């Protein structure tokens, strides 16, 4: 998952190269933010989560032992941060304000119904139990393979498959209502 360019940057960042780290952050900001958004559903919250996550990454990277891929590591941090964020008092928002489909998006090239449907799904995902939610987001929203998701979550690949399956079931039921 980590492209070759990243490899070099990560090495240098671990070694204390500030420019390399800066470059890494610039490259990955969008992805971290997007993951956070898909997790929490509110732009401002996602910005905040991204902020915290990247600060954590900044603290930890020079001790990163490459026991995992950089992107895996970053996903972990992001998801952990997002979870922590949502656990704090006052940060839980009403489910129906999450994943707001803005006016502009509704008139986008993609069909408006797509937007609305996607938003509905994300809202339903937000209500899933954590383990299912994590697995489902990583696999179906972030586009990771089951194996990659397993690496992020620190579980067996089959566990991921099982959780994704369960999550889909729950979603199905939720949508049928």
């Amino acid at each position, binding site marked *: 998952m980590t492209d070759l360019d990243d490899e070099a940057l990560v090495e240098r960042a671990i070694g204390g190269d500030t420019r390399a780290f800066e470059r890494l952050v610039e490259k990955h900001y969008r992805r971290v933010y997007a993951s956070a958004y898909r997790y929490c559903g509110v*732009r401002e919250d996602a910005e*905040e989560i991204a902020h915290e996550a990247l600060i954590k990454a900044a603290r930890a990277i020079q001790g990163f032992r490459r026991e995992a891929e950089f992107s895996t590591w970053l996903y972990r*941090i992001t998801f*952990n941060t997002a979870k922590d964020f949502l656990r704090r008092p006052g*940060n839980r*928002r009403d489910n129906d304000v999450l994943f707001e489909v803005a006016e502009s998006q509704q008139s986008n090239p993609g069909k408006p119904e797509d937007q609305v449907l*996607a938003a509905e799904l*994300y809202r339903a995902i937000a209500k899933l139990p954590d383990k299912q939610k994590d697995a489902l987001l990583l*696999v179906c929203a972030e586009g990771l393979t089951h194996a990659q998701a397993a*690496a992020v979550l620190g579980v067996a690949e089959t566990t991921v498959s099982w959780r994704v399956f369960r999550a889909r079931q729950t979603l199905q039921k939720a949508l049928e209502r």
Partner: protein
Amino acid sequence: MKEPELRQILRKGEVPEPNSAARQGTISAAVATFESVRKNRKGSPAAIRLRGTTTGEPLDQRRPMMSKLGVFLAPRGAVVGVVTVVVALGLAWTAFTTYFEDAAPGEGGATPEAPALLARRLDSPKPQEDYRLALRDRAEEQLKSQPLSRSQPLSASSKAETAGEARAPARPPSIGRDTFTEIDVNPVKVASEEPVSTFSVDVDTASYAFVRRQLNHGLLPQKDAVRIEELINYFDYDYPLPESQEQPFRATVAVYPTPWNAKTKLLHIGIKGHDIVPDKKPRSNLVFLIDVSGSMDQPDKLPLLKNAFRFLVSSLEKDDTVAIVVYAGAAGTVLEPTPVSQKNKILTALDQLQPGGTTAGAEGIRQAYALAEMGFDEQAVNRVILATDGDFNVGITNREELKDFVERKRKTGIYLSVLGFGQGNYNDALMQALAQNGNGNAAYIDNLNEARKVLVDEATSTLFPIAKDVKIQVEFNPAKVAEYRLIGYETRLLKREDFRNDRVDAGDIGSGHAVTALYEIIPVDGDAKWIDELRYKTTTGTTDGSKQASGPSSKEYAFLKIRYKLPDEDKSRLMTLPITSDLEAGNIAKVDGDLRFAAAVAAFGQLLRDDPFTGEYSFADVITLAEPARGEDRFGYRSEFLNLVRLAKSARALQPLPTKGTRPPVAPLREK
């Protein structure tokens, strides 16, 4: 639904663009953190590991981590760490973050030793306070390392002035997410080239309260937080009142030597409005629009706000009405328009306000105005009072749209005032913009006293305008004045043609308000000028000073014009006053105490901002000037001011640790 199908649908979901200022701020903060970690390591980076891979653990098996700030017990008694640096939750309002100062691209500032910084925060929140506040402060320390990328641009024309001065670079960079509109210090103008100066009156006091709060914490405020006109106008002055009730206010002028510069003079304009006679006081139809988001859950926010509004209610008359709408938490109407004769009902509704809860979107400001319209009374003052710590998610997210909305409503006769609370999230820039558009004032409530001042003592002036859209235009006489500069009002400047244009909005004067404006001028016969003379002088195109050399207006320094509208009129009226040399005092000691005090406050503001015009003047000099001018000082505000000056002296001495790499450049310690 099958997995691939699900993937497809989800991937189509659009992720809204992140705010570029937030993005930039995050990148800078991350880099700064990286740098500080790098610097804190001993030995070669490769050899040293941070304690465990703190966040690198797989999700399911996260091991607890120690946080630098403290230890929070998780349900099972394990230690759950929260790795720090959480920037204020006020990100909720980041639709308006164009003014993010800390989003300035990091200049690569290194975060100085964290423990030292934490220790210096003398008034750091107590452990039992909201840990978000603590974390936010931590974030502030982190961000402190970044110098303001936009320093005060010195006008090229003041180069002569500043040639000899070493600029003290150290200035606390923007902290947390308090945002202020950037201020460019007013440049010096040449009277023969640009004789006319135009600006809008400003009676807001938010800047003073905010500065006070910072100083009380031992910090120097950000430069952009210091609006000199608001510092001066915080105090009441006994300028002469209008002679008749017909005139809403009266202008008084004086000219005297500048305290901080022997070669210049101060041209002092004072405007005083009369107090509305109590039985002529119009009814009030008020709607409180209150932010109850999670971030308001701090002692200096919602609880203080409640007290503030209690004060206000206690000063209202029985036939005034109050309604309450909340937003950003449980939303909507908490209290329908209720006459103050049912005071208990109102106070109970206030008491029951709780912070936090879930957001509900489109309520908020529209609802508030709807309620105001419901109780609309042409004879009354109809006003929405918005109280927030910076979360403006009132139901209209687009900032421009919000301003337009407020402005449209203003035209229907419903005004808006804004009260700011707390810090770290304080969006002064937006507050000011809304208050200006809404024909209201903006105040910052940092403590109970201020709440009482703004909402009780000054309730009538806050609520009842006696003149609106008040604009000041001064034309300088090039025969007597060579150069001038307006002190303060940088955010209130108007174009010359705006003066006559009744469609251009300006500030209001409330019942009993006093407004002060100061110009520093260089007389034509003075030997020190700020600006070099032109080498290639032509007499065409510039005002010919020699014409005025003889003639009736030759004794005039300048001509003052004020345009204003009566509260229920749309056409402006004009008031004029020539500023002549018989209004001049040769010695500042002979000048009225009020004038001297105002000058002292002006000096203080300039010192706080490191404006380049105060020469060797020091905080001690400010005290010397202000102390004997305290006058009666019934509420102790002027004495409080003196204390602030003393605090500023010591805050100045504790320069924040500086930027990347180097040791702190020792600020040229002027004898303070």
